[in-house]
């Protein structure tokens, strides 16, 4: 070439790349069956196992190889599988998404990483028009077994162009599946399901969850573990009010449920896991039991996930509702940067508690305290 020496530096600045640690190192003393696993590790191990099981699976995106992933999700994979299966792409989301879809048309199984889903807007034409609609438009002759994954929604102090939530955008498109994990079990099971799925899947992770640890059972750690697409999980059973959430908000909802329990309100928290297809039967069965619904999401309110859930419940379970549906969403403004403003733009535990109380006819102030 032009005498440009490609610098192959061992990742870690000299120290050997850490291999995927054997899971026994996560053993905790208090229970022989329960281990702790970070979401980051859950995603990494799912990618590793699927790449190992199927040579057609490959990873592409910015910084996924030498840098070990912008958020270290693909750590160790370049070293293990080589540059043919872990591709560091130039900066062109439109370009590499188009290339990924082309590879999927041919029969490979690309996993395309967006550094954040904000950048997927540069590629959205390929996601929708080249991937999502092809199977239908070809009446089944073309299959696009591709996964688009990356962090979605708000992080901490990253401003408007790095905090947008795309769940509602992608979930409105027939031909796409849209998943959003919360725990490590979700991350492993749903990513494996996504990679194995013959259709395009949008996999919405969360940057702030990457470092969180969750208990995982031996079944979850097994390489054949997989979660069904389109099934929600009831994280906490309750009988007074149903709270629906996905991704990071599930954690906040569980905290809200703890607070509500102390005040005599038993909240049922549903972790959606799958935004499209939405598990309408689980949601409706829950509302028929509790008669009250609070939908919570980080994204903008108009045309959001909560709006769809509300419509579904009204269509199927209107007679069971004892109170208007409460919708908690991010503030209807581009995400501000200053910490005090950002806090006000994203749902907090107190907002969920207040909404649940309103649904249960407890008197509460309407507006958040400044």
């Amino acid at each position: 070439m032009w005498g440009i020496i490609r610098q192959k530096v061992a990742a870690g600045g000299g120290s050997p790349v850490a291999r995927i640690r054997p899971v026994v190192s996560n053993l905790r003393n208090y229970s022989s069956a329960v281990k702790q696993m970070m979401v980051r590790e859950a995603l990494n191990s799912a990618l590793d196992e699927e790449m190992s099981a199927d040579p057609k699976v490959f990873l592409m995106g910015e910084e996924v190889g030498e840098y070990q992933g912008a958020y270290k999700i693909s750590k160790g994979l370049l070293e293990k599988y080589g540059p043919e299966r872990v591709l560091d792409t130039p900066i062109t989301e439109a370009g590499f998404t188009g290339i990924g879809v082309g590879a999927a048309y041919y029969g490979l199984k690309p996993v395309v990483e967006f550094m954040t889903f904000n950048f997927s807007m540069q590629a959205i034409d390929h996601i929708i028009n080249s991937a999502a609609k092809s199977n239908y438009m070809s009446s089944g002759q073309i299959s696009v077994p591709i996964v688009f994954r990356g962090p979605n929604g708000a992080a901490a102090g990253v401003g408007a162009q790095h905090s947008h939530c795309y769940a509602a955008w992608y979930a409105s498109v027939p031909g796409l599946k849209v998943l959003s994990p919360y725990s490590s079990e979700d991350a492993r099971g749903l990513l494996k399901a996504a990679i194995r799925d013959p259709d395009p899947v949008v996999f919405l992770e969360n940057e702030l969850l990457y470092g969180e640890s969750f208990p995982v059972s031996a079944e979850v750690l097994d390489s054949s573990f997989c979660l069904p697409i389109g099934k929600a999980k009831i994280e906490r059973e309750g009988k007074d009010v149903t709270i629906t959430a996905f991704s990071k908000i599930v954690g906040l909802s569980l905290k809200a449920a703890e607070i509500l329990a102390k005040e005599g309100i038993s909240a049922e928290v549903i972790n959606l896991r799958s935004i499209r297809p939405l598990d309408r039967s689980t949601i409706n069965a829950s509302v028929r039991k509790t008669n009250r619904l609070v939908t919570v999401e980080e994204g903008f309110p108009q045309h959001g996930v909560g709006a769809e859930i509300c419509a579904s419940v009204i269509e199927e379970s209107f007679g069971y509702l004892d109170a208007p549906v409460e919708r908690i969403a991010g503030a209807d403004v581009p995400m501000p940067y200053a910490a005090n403003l950002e806090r006000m733009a994203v749902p907090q535990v107190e907002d969920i508690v207040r909404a649940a109380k309103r649904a249960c006819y407890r008197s509460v102030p309407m507006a958040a305290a400044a």
Partner: protein
Amino acid sequence: MRFISESSEERIPCYRVLDDDGQPFPDSSFVKVSEGVAIKMYNDMVTLQTMDTIFYEAQRQGRISFYLTTSGEEAINIASAAAIKNDDFVVPQYREPGVLLWRGFSMQEFANQCFGNKADYGKGRQMPIHYGSNKHNYFTVSSTIATQLPHAVGAAYALKMDRKDACAVTYFGDGGTSEGDFHAALNFSAVTEAPVIFICRNNGWAISTPISDQFRSDGAVVKGRAYGVRSIRVDGNDALAIYSAVHAAREMAIGEGRPILIEALTYRVGHHTTSDDSTKYRPVDEIEWWRTTQDPVTRFRKWIESNGWWNGDIESELRSSVRKQVILVSLTISKYGLLQLQH
């Protein structure tokens, strides 16, 4: 039947004025810079370097959440700013605060934006380093890569329609040339004959992606011809070369109504941002070599010294007074407080 080769025998040559010791090559021609302008250029390069050091440290201390430096690219920033006029509309990427500095943005105003306090023109809505100023004709930094290129072409077209004696100037990195917007912007600028100067800071790295993984062409300069855009390759660490090239580009852009592409070869001495540790993907001695032997600020200082416009005493005085000024600003920033939501 003959195929055009994918690469030519020789690389496009690079225009240079000053050698590594800051002395003009015997046969080099360049646009003369007056003592006053040269001193201001040097002052601003030192200020930019100092500001980067102090604010980077402030991020490490947890006082601002994010920062990125312009280390190694001070000449591109300041010399290009010096060669254009205040009416020229600047549309930056994010590694060009020096242009704003040249135009009179104060240390206080830079700090206000980084800290997101009450005096911030952006009212705390933007991440640090997303500067912008209407009165300085410097469009607000946006995180999205290369989207500013078609914006600059549109602005240039408007300037042409208004028959203004001004052009648009836009900056981007080697990584930005991979974006679809680069193609659209260059193509459109040629077809619409827009007075826009495209300045590519080819600093060798797009986060961890080296240029060998970014493109297989001879850098960015050869892409100009593909679109019918006049181009030049310049030593980005040579302030006089940058000044001359941008000066000439501006005359052509406005006088002839055409776009110009300038590729400035340089090296990103700092990490991509405070969220990066570049020693993880490139050798430390490579970084050190560029930082010490190729420093554009040092090279320019040697030139102004050899002209008798500068000496060691003024140098120490400048360094210490700029450092004091920047530190003072960064320490007193909290007096402004954060903007509260008003109902």
